[in-house]
């Protein structure tokens, strides 16, 4: 199993968001987590990406733990292990959060430049490949404000894929798209799964759930 999430519990103060959630995702699989608005889908993705801390539970990717339970209390990994975990998971935010002052290509190159784990040529090559795969090669020098919602989303996907994470998460990928672009996003997501990524998609969009043909987990009642 690529990603194993066990016994996940999260509240904000007195408000319980989710309780005892369990799921696994393997290489090439798509897990669709569906649920109505306010059921904690975004919070769950934020916990997987360590933007939010769990109350209880354990999460691991390829055997490397983000956190595990010790005596009923959650214990997070050491700094270096957290860094390694981060590179193994990516997130495409609901509103993409592109860097508005950088071109599409600069958005893609920022993380590899910081991590300095590939040569300039390698990162250029990978950026070009991803932009081509997502059919936005002609937009590499465009700023986010010059792109349509669907194109911005592709830049966000490409940016998340630059470091080739094992797991990629999508938060409501169809929420800001029109009919036509909606059909394309499920193709893109399936394509990434076929290349061997483990994909987690959270959505309240039942037609997307059908199109993705993945395993389905329902949150809430």
């Amino acid at each position, binding site marked *: 199993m690529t990603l194993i999430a066990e016994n996940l519990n999260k509240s904000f103060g007195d408000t319980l968001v989710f309780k005892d959630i369990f799921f696994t995702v393997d290489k090439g699989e798509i897990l669709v987590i569906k649920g109505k608005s306010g059921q904690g889908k975004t919070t769950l993705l934020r916990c997987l990406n360590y*933007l939010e801390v769990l109350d209880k539970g354990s999460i691991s990717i390829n055997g490397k733990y983000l956190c595990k339970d010790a005596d009923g209390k959650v214990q997070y990994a050491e700094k270096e292990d957290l860094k390694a975990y981060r*590179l193994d998971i990516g997130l495409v935010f609901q*509103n993409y*959060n*592109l860097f508005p002052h950088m071109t599409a290509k600069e958005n893609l190159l*920022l993380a590899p430049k*910081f991590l300095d784990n590939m040569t300039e040529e390698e990162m250029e090559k990978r950026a070009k490949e991803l932009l081509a795969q997502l059919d936005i090669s002609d937009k590499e020098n465009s700023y986010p404000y010059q792109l349509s919602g669907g194109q911005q989303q592709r830049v966000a996907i490409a940016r998340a894929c630059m470091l080739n994470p094992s797991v990629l998460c999508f938060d409501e990928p169809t929420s800001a798209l029109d009919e036509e672009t909606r059909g394309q996003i499920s193709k893109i997501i399936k394509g990434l799964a076929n290349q061997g990524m483990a994909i987690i998609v959270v959505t309240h969009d039942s037609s997307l759930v059908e199109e993705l043909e993945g395993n389905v987990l329902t949150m809430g009642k």
Partner: protein
Amino acid sequence: MKVFNMLLPMTMEGLKVTLGVFLITLVLSVPLSIIVAKLRMSKNKLVAKIVGIYIYIMRGTPLLLQLMFIFFGFHYIPVIGYAFSRHQAIAVAFILNYTAYFSEIFRGGINSIDVGQTEASTVLGLSKRYSFMKVILPQVIKNVMPSIGNEVITLVKDTSLVYILGVADILKAAKAVSNTYSTFVPYIFIGLVYLLIVAVLTKVLDNVEAKFNYYR
């Protein structure tokens, strides 16, 4: 004409002071203020509180009083007390004062950036420092440029406060010549010099703002 024979050389000397105070304050206060803004927003409550008090004092008392205190009063303070020269006192007072004002502008600017920008950086594995320098700060600078520009122009005029320590800037030059020849002309002339400096600065500030207009 005799008026100008006296006024022009004195103005040139005064300009060294006016522009000197202006430049050293600007060059040192802006970077310092970014650090102070970060400290003001520090998770460490004590640090945030101390920096808050510093900003409160700097913004809550006249710069004139601060100049006087640093030159005449600071060496009476035990342990840290130090007798600054006139020029040192001027530099210290202006830098402390303007750093406080600039830092509040930067704090507002940093807070105005969507947390999603930091979260996207975090998820991509960037360090906090790298994310601040490459993602947050460039966007902050674009947003704060108009407010910084206002302060920069105020700073030009504030340099005239150095008279309180007996240092001769361009306004002091006007006063000396005016007293000698019993005429108001030097004041009008120096008023035009200020306007000229501000005109040049406005142009420079507009250009800097335009540089950041490549995105929305």
